[in-house]
């Protein structure tokens, strides 16, 4: 009967919300964490933005169309330096562009040509500059490739007309920090989902033992699996709540900052993320709850939790290096690996509802299996009265 599970659930929620610590860790911190991180990164990226807006570069050969092109671009200052590597190192220039000696011939004959870009990999502003440079390079290629110029004059003519239009890269309203955060946001959300549900589930099970309410609780007339279901719901809900707080904090900040619309966040992706986090919460909660039931104390549970955590995270970690565009049903059946796959998919803009469905189904199955194990454990005398 679901009624008894709900009695347990509501009682647990009451206990959770009366504890300020849980409230602060579970709701308040996730709510302000992302905004705080954006604010911090925005601060450091503003410096880098300068570097991207005002590119100082050097080019290997000066007598060619690309050199002329760069002179025409408002955002680029071309410097002639003797020792490019050391100029990069001491920050005199942000980028050194190495181009083919016979660039113009190649353009005229329609041959492919190359740009080699050298920059200081340890400097964030230099990294930001390469991004801007890549945009200029693209503009240049658009300008000269496949145009069938018949002579050098025609090519130079095209270049000289270029100043009429503007490069877009750096002054688009989407900031670098935002791009960066859109990438790490899902990670943060997942971490909070994980932490929220596992810590609650462990507390809900081992806490009863440590406060010696476990035996009175088990000796009530209620069947033990209802206790498990109620606690599972409570832990899942708490993990989910942390996730939502993280998301609300993140989107709320973007909204008030006025960059929400231009951030390019896909709503479908966000919704998938929310749904998935609900499933992760349930899965992690069930595992932590089973562990908590098995352990005598919170301390014991923590020691078991570390290897179990590694076991759960490993497949998820594998997925981060996988190309998710061609995952099969096999990959989608491995716990955590499947979840990371779906998250990655939604991030690269592929909102595959079928995959979401398959993964959800598997997570429900796994959660159910762990729940069944928990039911077994809670019926075992040697576990309830461990000494």
């Amino acid at each position, binding site marked *: 009967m679901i009624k008894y599970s709900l009695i347990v659930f509501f009682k647990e929620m009451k206990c959770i919300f*009366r504890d300020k610590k849980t409230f602060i860790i579970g709701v308040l911190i996730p709510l302000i964490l992302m905004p705080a991180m954006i604010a911090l990164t925005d601060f450091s990226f503003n410096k880098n933005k300068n570097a991207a807006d005002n590119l100082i570069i050097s080019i290997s050969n000066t007598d060619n169309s690309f050199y002329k092109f760069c002179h025409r671009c408002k955002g680029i200052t071309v410097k002639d330096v003797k020792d490019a590597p050391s100029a990069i190192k001491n920050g005199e220039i942000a980028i050194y562009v190495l181009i083919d000696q016979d660039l113009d011939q190649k353009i005229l004959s329609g041959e492919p040509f190359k740009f080699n870009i050298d920059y200081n990999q340890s400097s964030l502003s230099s990294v930001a500059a390469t991004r801007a440079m890549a945009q200029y390079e693209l503009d240049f290629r658009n300008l000269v490739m496949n145009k069938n110029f018949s002579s050098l004059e025609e090519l130079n003519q095209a270049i000289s007309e270029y100043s009429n239009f503007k490069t877009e890269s750096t002054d688009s309203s989407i900031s670098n920090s935002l791009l960066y955060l859109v990438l790490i946001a899902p990670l943060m959300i997942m971490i909070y989902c994980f932490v929220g549900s596992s810590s609650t589930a462990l507390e809900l099970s081992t806490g009863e033992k440590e406060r010696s309410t476990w035996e*009175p609780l088990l000796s009530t007339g209620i069947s033990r699996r209802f206790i498990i279901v109620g606690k599972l719901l409570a832990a899942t809900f708490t993990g989910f709540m942390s996730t939502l707080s993280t998301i609300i904090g993140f989107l709320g900040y973007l909204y008030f900052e006025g960059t929400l619309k231009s951030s390019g966040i896909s709503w479908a992706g966000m919704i998938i993320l929310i749904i998935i986090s609900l499933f992760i919460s349930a899965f992690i909660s069930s595992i932590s709850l089973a562990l908590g039931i098995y352990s005598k104390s919170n301390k014991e549970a923590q020691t078991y939790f570390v290897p179990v955590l590694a076991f759960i995270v490993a497949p998820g970690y594998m997925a981060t290096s996988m190309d998710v565009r061609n995952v099969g049903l096999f990959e989608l059946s491995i716990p955590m690996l499947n979840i990371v796959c779906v998250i990655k998919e939604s991030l690269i803009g592929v909102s595959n509802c079928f995959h979401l469905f398959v993964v959800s189904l598997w997570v429900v199955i796994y959660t159910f299996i762990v729940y069944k194990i928990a039911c077994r454990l809670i019926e075992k005398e040697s576990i309830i*009265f461990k000494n």
Partner: protein
Amino acid sequence: MIKILNISKSFKNIEALKDITLEVNDGEILGLLGENGAGKSTLLRIISTMLKPSSGTALINGLDLISNSEEVRKNIGILFGSEVGLYDRLTPKENLEYFARLNGMSKDDINLRIEFLIEEFDFKKYFQRPCMELSKGMKQKVAIARAIVHNPSVMLFDEPESGLDFKASRTVLEFMEKCKLEGKCVIFSSHSLENIKNYSDKIAVLSKGQIMNIFSVKKYRAKYNERQINDIILNWVCKEDKND
């Protein structure tokens, strides 16, 4: 009423209970006397269905312990000693409500019952405060009320006075007596000879999982003086085996 029929219990290689047969009537307190490790808790846990007997069974108000465990649990209240076992963040009222609801009581019954318990234990002053703010004595009272919130007809007290100061243990023991007067069937386990003698109607001496003797306190008092009774009982408590 409790009828224990040939119950044995082993944990792996430890024989914790050997062929226990006992009967406790309504309105009667059975004192279960034994040293640490004698098997008192194990026996009470079997009666409360927390443990399954390895063999034998028991009838609680006519209900079979093994086949009807969920019903049996609703008839039983348990109280442990030192550990109060309350939810600190809930108020006494919420603690009582929670256990009442888990025992399947209806809302109206719960309200009536809690009204009654508030009167009974003089709870009014601190009923709205979370349990963590209460003194140890108050918590003990709440724990007692929690044990009887569903008005069970069988009460099991497992060393209820251990770890309590004099006043608190007195409260518990007097409460136990009250249960008896209300017609409940009570088992009281302890390793305190004095308390067992003062509060029980019948005493069962348990040693190494075996019942050494069961006798009526009244009958013994008619025959022997206190000193003699103590000697007889201690002799059983410390006996190595029934057969030597």
